[in-house]
């Protein structure tokens, strides 16, 4: 059965999570800056032997079907793009968290990583096709991290999935966050935000983690990014890539139309692209050993 988490316990849970590697942390900060260049990313990767090896392995995996093997890290990063490099780096140092079985949501191990990857791809597609003035690569990274709080509270929700579904269905407004709060005292966005602070993530990523279900509450300057991930998350859930019991049990904030132009046809194209890209990335990132 579920068990309430105190503020102190939440801090203990957050403290028990391994810190990000220096390289991953710097990558997140550099790529969140508007004026960064690819060379900045290449320089960071070059200084991390482990990440260099993984990036080369990914780019030469079957998914990218290269004719000639890439052996230089400059070319590997250019070819993969910064978003995939960030994905490899995160999978590498937080893989255990992403891979964790979410028994509190009746979701098998790997479900969180797959949902996050789908959300990342979908958020980037929304940024690209929705006529948005935000970095598509940053939308991807934000999508990868948005649900990380579920890994922190899932164990405490174990055995109470039916209760959570019942709680959500009795409220006027569908919102699984209410069930999480009622059962364990915190919802996954609050727990994720505590981890974002401990990891010293860039503010825009922390805002996405905290407000991806209620994007109107985000700071104005970050709203476009938060709305992009809000839609990306919903698209991932609609496509069957949720994390179990909470899937689709949230409100869609229709104010997204203030930031994103999306028609039923664009949505269909986005959903199709997400499926295609997901298949490619899932298998290639698996080969890297990160994420799995």
């Amino acid at each position, binding site marked *: 059965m579920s068990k309430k988490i105190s503020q102190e316990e939440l801090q203990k849970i957050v403290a028990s999570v391994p810190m990000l590697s220096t390289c991953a942390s710097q990558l997140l900060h550099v790529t969140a800056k508007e004026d960064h260049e690819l060379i900045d990313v290449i320089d960071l990767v070059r200084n991390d032997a482990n990440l260099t090896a993984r990036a080369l392995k990914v780019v030469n995996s079957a998914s990218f079907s290269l004719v000639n093997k890439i052996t230089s890290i400059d070319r590997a990063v250019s070819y993969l793009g910064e978003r995939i490099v960030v994905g490899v780096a995160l999978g590498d140092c937080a893989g255990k968290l992403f891979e964790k079985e979410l028994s509190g949501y009746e979701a098998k191990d790997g479900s969180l990583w797959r949902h996050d990857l789908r959300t990342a791809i979908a958020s980037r597609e929304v940024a690209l096709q929705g006529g948005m003035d935000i970095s598509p690569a940053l939308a991807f990274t934000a999508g990868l991290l948005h649900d990380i709080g579920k890994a922190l509270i899932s164990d405490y929700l174990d055995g109470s999935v*039916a209760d959570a579904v019942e709680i959500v269905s009795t409220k006027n407004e569908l919102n699984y966050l209410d069930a999480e709060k009622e059962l364990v005292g915190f919802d996954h966005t609050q727990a994720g935000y505590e981890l974002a602070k401990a990891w010293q993530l860039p503010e825009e990523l922390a805002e996405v983690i905290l407000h991806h279900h209620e994007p109107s509450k985000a700071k104005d300057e970050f709203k476009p990014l938060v709305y992009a991930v809000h839609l990306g998350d919903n698209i991932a859930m*609609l*496509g069957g890539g949720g994390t179990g019991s909470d899937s689709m049990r949230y409100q869609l904030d229709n104010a997204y*139309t203030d930031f994103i132009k999306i028609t039923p*046809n664009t949505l269909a194209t986005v959903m199709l692209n997400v*499926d295609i890209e997901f298949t490619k990335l899932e298998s290639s990132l698996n080969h890297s050993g990160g994420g799995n």
Partner: protein
Amino acid sequence: MGQIILGVGDYGASNSPEDEIKTFALGSCVSVIFLDPKSRTVGMAHIALPDSSINSAKAAEKPGYFADSAIPALLKQMGAMGCDKRGKGMIVKLCGGANVMDTNDTFQIGKRNALAIKKLLWSYGMGAIAEDLGGNYSRTVAISVAAGQITLSSPGKPNWQL
């Protein structure tokens, strides 16, 4: 018991009584199920989108992905297994097609999928005798070929039959 697992955009059919056809976590996707009582064949398609005109190359590669290419493809496969090629005498059931709470219709993709499928079935003179569509939750569907029994499941809910 053989298990035939269908992913998004897959379709398949079986007449081996020991088989089970299964698809996981339908969100806005719709599972179309054909049961042919005469030959005791069961077929299913896991349809993701209503209309293949957005990407005809994808439809050629994976016909099960779109409503307008999936239904002819499934009927063709079942036709090759001795069923009527236009679905005559088949029992049709539909499930899935969930939606998120959206007041301006753009995200009602589950509803659009279901509608496109029903229109297409109508053009074959077919119609569903049972459906479990809509709602705000994911569904996993399993059909036993021997009994033609369809079992649905969703996290946090007791299993149910269609």
